[in-house]
């Protein structure tokens, strides 16, 4: 008995480094941010208790509520569009094994290893009036906004969103194509005996078979959309005006340049909650069929 307890205690030593690093540099600061969010503090002088007013501002102050709305719009471009595109391609190409996927896969995942800051810099030029996009448009007798796609109040946010679509559709295509190969071919045969056409087969067999992959794709892409600080920082820095601000950008701006640490902390807490709720919903929806 004594021996058992002693060795149990020793087993925890293996966990100690991970737990210490995680607690000291993730959990403690996270709790501190939560605490800061109840104060008005400029980062230097004494803080003043603010209650929940910083959270109230996330609804009432257009700068803060705007950032939350923008991140929901980006969610459509980063998560919904790539998943739909991926499913369309999967439907188009069918479910059978495909040789030579390796090269495509290598290319599709390539943007994932590039720093988002670098991607932002490249696309800033891509969208500018001297960029390749304008070149293509001119060739067919059209032209984009005079101030560039990222400088125009109406096009800036969708333009940032499309960077996300570009960034993530390849991952979705790869995930779904490899997932579709694992679906039992007999299911398709059975469906076609029942008289189901190509489209019905896709809905009845492929989609349910890809449930896990769709959930994973929505998680990866959704988190990328909500954590888009790096990309927005270099692509637009929130502009023009505040058209493309995202929560991450406000945490940085309010917390480190505007001296509004409490408000910045509230935005950080809000962002975390949105992320947690999003991941929970995806998990819930994707595991719904499991109990059946």
């Amino acid at each position, binding site marked *: 008995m004594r021996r058992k307890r002693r060795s149990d205690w020793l087993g925890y030593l293996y966990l100690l480094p991970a737990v210490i690093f995680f607690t000291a540099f*993730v959990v403690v600061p996270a709790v501190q941010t939560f605490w800061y969010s109840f104060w008005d503090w400029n980062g230097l002088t004494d803080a003043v208790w603010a209650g929940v007013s910083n959270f109230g501002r996330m609804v009432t102050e257009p700068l803060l509520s705007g950032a939350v709305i923008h991140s929901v719009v980006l969610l459509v471009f980063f998560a919904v569009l790539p998943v739909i595109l991926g499913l369309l391609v999967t439907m188009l190409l069918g479910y059978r094994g495909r040789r030579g996927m390796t090269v495509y896969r290598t290319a599709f995942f*390539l943007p994932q290893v590039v*720093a988002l800051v670098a991607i932002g810099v490249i696309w800033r030029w891509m969208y500018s009036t001297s960029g390749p996009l304008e070149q293509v448009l001119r060739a067919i007798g059209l032209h984009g906004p005079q101030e560039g796609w990222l400088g125009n109040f109406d096009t800036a946010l969708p333009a940032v969103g499309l960077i996300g679509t570009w960034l993530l559709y390849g991952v979705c295509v790869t995930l779904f194509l490899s997932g579709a190969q694992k679906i039992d071919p007999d299911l398709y045969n059975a469906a076609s005996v029942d008289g189901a056409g190509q489209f019905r087969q896709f809905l009845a067999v492929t989609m349910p078979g890809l449930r896990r992959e769709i959930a994973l794709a929505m998680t990866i892409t959704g988190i990328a959309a909500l954590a888009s600080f790096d990309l927005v920082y270099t692509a637009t820095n929130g502009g023009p005006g505040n058209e493309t601000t995202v929560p991450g950008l406000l945490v940085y701006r309010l917390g480190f340049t505007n001296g509004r640490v409490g408000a910045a902390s509230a935005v950080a*807490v809000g*962002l975390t909650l949105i992320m947690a709720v999003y991941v929970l919903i995806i998990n819930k929806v994707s595991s719904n069929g499991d109990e059946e």
Partner: protein
Amino acid sequence: MKGSTKASIASHVVLLAMMLVTLFPLVAALFAAMKEPGSPVMGLQWPDRWSLDTFMYAWDKAGFSDLMMSSLIVILFVVPIAMICALMAGYALGTLKLRFGKPIYLFLILGLTLPIELMIIPLYHDFSQVGLLNSYQGVILAEIGLFMPFGTFWMTAHFASLPSSLIEAAQLDGASRRVILWRVLLPGARPSMTTLGVLYFIWSWNQFLLPLVLITSPGKRTAPAGLGSFAGEYTLDVPGLSAATLLTMLPPLVVYLFFQRHFISGMLHGAIKG
């Protein structure tokens, strides 16, 4: 037979087109970087010369000698330390039947969906109080903490998938826990550890907000943070900017091309860009 060949060609055309769309911005940037620094670039242009001049120019102007060195120092500490911590935690949680193993696992996994934005403000203020601001140590410690949830998740999954007979046999031979981990289990953990190392390298290299906030002197910045400020100063120099961007991308890209199987399998098993 003929129909299926046609379908196969059609699907290759679709995939090829998508691949070109993915690679297009990177290729356009590469072509732009072939032009003289500061010269105007109108869209995608086939280079009239192949030269590294602009890369050398960008290297000097953005101070890449310092930037690359800083990034390397950070990675040299973060990757091995985080890997060892994750290995040990995964071993304990995946094979030892600890009474409080489950809650500790859940506690660590909780961190998987916490954005760095949630930690950055207190990290800045705490570090400035203990003198860790503007030091590599600060960035290193914070990144290791940030990387623990995924590493624990990853290595626990690896060790939990091992047959228990393997460990029991070693125990019967009288091997201690230390020997079991480092001599018996480590060789088999190599593929999982490699994937973890590759992901850690790429995440650490690309980490932006942490060094942007925690490192204030330009000479100590990491490559992406340096690129961020270079991009703010040289907004109109498309060739120079493209070259700097490609230089920043290069190290993780090389690692990716060597270990792409590991990286992709990591992503497909739930690794979320850190």
